[in-house]
């Protein structure tokens, strides 16, 4: 089973790549027999431009594109530039053959300065992968600069996303977390007081 991550971080070192690695580590933990590959789009910048403007596709680019097309599950991570995925990120998926990602489950990740841009995932990445007929999973992972100082909340989201991808590629149904995130008309008690007190120190899952 192949899991491929496409990471479009522009800098080196890159927090986009850092996020990608963090998500991959969580996925690998849950799928110990999977073959994992990271495609760092930065390395293919020139090749992608050449492929876009002249149609000529280098061998190494072809290999990377085929790896992505071959994946049972994909992790796509971009920095947020000007409120959207970066041009470099988009270039990869523009060059990829149409239909390559049909029905492939995808985890979407993004990095940015503050949490105010987190909806760039919902509003720019989701429509892109919908068009590609992939299946973006509803567990977006956004990392703001501040998350690297205190990753508790980020890690909670990474864990939920990794659970979802692992279950999806294994054909299982994910039971989502036990925490009731929103008030509702369901008064089912899900933990005892002692369990709740023991968990007070853990970061929120939102």
């Amino acid at each position, binding site marked *: 089973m192949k899991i491929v991550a496409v990471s479009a971080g522009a800098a080196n070192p890159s927090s986009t790549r850092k996020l990608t690695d963090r998500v991959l580590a969580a996925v690998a933990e849950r799928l110990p027999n999977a073959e994992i590959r990271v495609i760092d789009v930065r390395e293919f910048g020139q090749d992608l431009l050449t492929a876009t403007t002249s149609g000529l596709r280098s061998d190494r680019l072809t290999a990377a594109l085929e790896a992505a097309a071959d994946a049972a599950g994909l992790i796509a991570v971009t920095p947020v530039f000007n409120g959207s995925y970066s041009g470099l990120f988009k270039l990869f998926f523009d060059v990829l053959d149409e239909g390559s990602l049909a029905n492939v489950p995808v985890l979407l990740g993004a990095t940015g300065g503050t949490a105010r841009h987190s909806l760039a995932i919902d509003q720019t990445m989701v429509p892109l992968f919908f068009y590609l007929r992939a299946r973006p999973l509803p567990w977006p992972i956004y990392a703001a600069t501040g998350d690297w100082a205190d990753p508790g909340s980020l890690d909670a989201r990474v864990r939920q996303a990794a659970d979802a991808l692992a279950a999806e590629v294994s054909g299982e149904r994910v039971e989502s977390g036990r925490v009731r995130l929103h*008030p*509702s*008309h369901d*008064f*089912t*008690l*899900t*933990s*005892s*007081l*002692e369990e*709740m*007190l023991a*968990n*007070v*120190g853990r970061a*929120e899952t*939102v």
Partner: protein
Amino acid sequence: MSNPVQIGVFSVSDITTDPTTDRTPSEHERIKASVAIAKKAEDVGLDVFAIGEHHNPPFFSSSPTTTLSYIAAQTERIILSTATTLITTNDPVKIAEDFAMLQHLADGRADLMLGRGNTGPVYPWFGQDIRNGINLAIENYALLHRLWRETDVDWDGRFRTPLAGFTSTPRPLDDVPPFVWHGSIRSPEIAEQAAYYGDGFFHNNIFWTMSHTRQMIDLYRRRYEHYGHGAYHQAIVGLGGQFFMRPNSQDAWREFRPYFDKAPVYGHGPSMEEFTSATPLTVGSPQQVLERTLGFREAVGDYQRQLFLIDHAGLPLKTVLEQLDLLGEILPAMRAGFAEGRPTDVPDAPTHPSRVAAAGGPRDSTRYAEPDAVTGRAVEYN
């Protein structure tokens, strides 16, 4: 001589324009009015007056124990309480101190109801985040519970800076902490907390259907029994409610309608007809209020405290005092109604004297400074 079911009134301290005159009372007027309401409540024979806590306009009650102490000094029998004290954004140390003070000043005529508060912006003003509401409620109460029962407390939690060897003062009156009601409308976690400690559970019973209220109280009762504090039917339950009455039912409808339609919380939503049929709000004659109130037991079982929101929606003081007179007139029938069919093993509403008796008698828990072994003088703390 105390009543098995405590009946009383509460205010959330809103400052609301009277929709029939377009006049808005000042903070000073509303503050003084709340004292007048409490005194009138005692005069007509009610058992409890409770006030809310808010930290922004259009409310005035940012310092409930100050107000309640002032009222305690001018009354003799009525129990002073809150609806609610914020267990989320207040420092539990301050709650322990303020309410122990009130308890002493009021000679035990004080208890409190804890709530989380639903005003988002208030949380960051006090260094917190509303999304941590439940965690705050349970961690802060765990500390408060200890502060009233232990001295030299060491504490290290998530939300408050640590404590080392801390004793809150004054110690509770007679070494018996004020009784705590946990108020919640829709959070099973709070019903669970109330049950765990054997404290009371209060449902405001205002904006929701009785079936909603019933489910929450059922959960609390089951967990109360689970934790070994007593049987299901013996848990300590309180309900809110609201009414507007006139001797003639049509007069009540006509008079209250503009208040209802423009009220900050009710207005511009379901009609008064829909609201009064779906929720416990009762608009009508005293007899209707009496019957509706006595009917609540069918949903929640025999309970210990019934409070009514008395001054909401811009009702002028004169009208509120008239409502209290009318309530006073049906009070004996209400008490008799509550007593009818009440099993003898359902506990009475808790009071300070009953709790002291249950604890085996009063104890002076003052921490006296130890005298110096050399000079024989007590240590002075500067």
